[in-house]
């Protein structure tokens, strides 16, 4: 933790402004009543959001607000650690894994255990009711505040306890962190069981499959022969049939490919539009000089092309 003494001093000043020997000031009450409902909303966002990313953003908001509340509660060191460790490291790790697993990995809404949703909701409400009742009915001593332990600034007071009473726990926690790091490395390590397939192997296999529907040439461009250059409209082959491969694979996977029928429906209504999509009559035999005649209607009128 490398927060400069001036920063911590400033935070300490903020904390001192908010508290007066454990009694909350009006400023702290305003801060609490502004932040608390927003924090509950952020937490509910985690519970209700369909997409994991939205839930993660709600939790990030809750964690930053908690850091503000820590600073207001005379714990500036914990406030800084909360921002750096929780929002800075842990939640960003969550976001990395969300991106790795796939942002679209949203929840399935089918219930595998019947009635699990209602049991869960009843459990949550009941837990809140029991805990709130327990917390509010206990009589606490008059709050003493942290003016005395924080006399030499809050980090110094915390450090005296960590490196005094809790020195063994501190070292054990260091071992725990090392173990966790090694564990993560071991868990995500993947041993290669098959040969690596590189560019050469891919190219060889494509050439080997040449006669079985594999094309070595580039895929056809989308929409060029369908009177539009839109990416999502398939190209037409000479017989007027849409070529599915001409639309990008990504668009096809996403289901954003436009159906050719839908596209062709508007063509006939246009002024001077031709009839696209009707299969042309088959071409004549090889060597035949007069092929079938096709009427092409253009903006200038009707032309007959031999």
């Amino acid at each position, binding site marked *: 933790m490398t927060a400069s003494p001036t920063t911590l001093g400033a935070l300490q000043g903020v904390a001192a402004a908010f508290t007066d020997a454990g009694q909350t000031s009006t400023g702290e009450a305003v801060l609490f009543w502004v932040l608390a409902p927003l924090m509950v909303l952020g937490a509910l966002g985690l519970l209700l959001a369909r997409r994991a990313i939205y839930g993660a953003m709600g939790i990030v908001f809750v964690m930053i607000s908690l850091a503000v509340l820590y600073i207001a509660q005379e714990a500036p060191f914990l406030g800084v650690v909360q921002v750096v460790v929780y929002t800075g490291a842990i939640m960003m790790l969550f976001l990395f894994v969300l991106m790795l697993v796939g942002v679209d990995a949203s929840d399935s809404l089918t219930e595998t255990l019947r009635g699990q949703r209602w049991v*869960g909701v009843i459990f949550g409400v009941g837990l809140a009711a029991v805990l709130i009742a327990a917390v509010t009915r206990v009589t606490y001593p008059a709050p003493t505040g942290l003016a005395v332990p924080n006399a030499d600034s809050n980090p110094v007071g915390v450090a005296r306890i960590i490196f005094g009473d809790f020195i063994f726990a501190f070292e054990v926690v260091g071992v725990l962190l090392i173990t*966790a790091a090694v564990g993560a490395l071991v868990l995500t390590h993947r041993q290669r069981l098959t040969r690596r397939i590189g560019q050469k192997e891919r190219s060889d296999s494509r050439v080997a499959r040449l006669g079985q529907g594999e094309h070595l040439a580039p895929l056809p461009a989308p929409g060029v022969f369908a009177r539009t250059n839109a990416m999502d409209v398939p190209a037409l082959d000479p017989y007027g049939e849409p070529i599915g491969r001409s639309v990008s694979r990504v668009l096809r996977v996403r289901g954003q490919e436009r159906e050719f029928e839908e596209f062709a429906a508007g063509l006939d209504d246009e002024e001077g539009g031709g009839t696209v999509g009707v299969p042309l009559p088959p071409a004549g035999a090889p060597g035949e000089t007069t092929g079938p005649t096709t009427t092409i209607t253009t903006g200038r009128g009707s032309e007959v092309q031999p």
Partner: protein
Amino acid sequence: MNLTNYLVLATILFSIGATTVLLRRNAIIAFMGVELMLNATNLVLVTYARMHGDLSGQVMAFFVMVVAAAEVVVGLAIIVQIFRTRRSASVDDINLLKS
């Protein structure tokens, strides 16, 4: 303002986190519910430290943060590994032991 308000807020956050763990099937969201519960307990610890004028509560909250960091690293590694082998991050799909 009474300091108990902080405890009530922490209680509500804890309950929401527990409900999230129970209800959501996505392993990552359930894991974030665990993080929410840890944060709520930290708020309780900090509030008690202020109530009793003893910094030990803040030290315990600090240790909770460190242990949470270690736990997140291992837990997310497990989730990534399960996703690699099963192509799914849902806790419902992991029923290998089911008869």
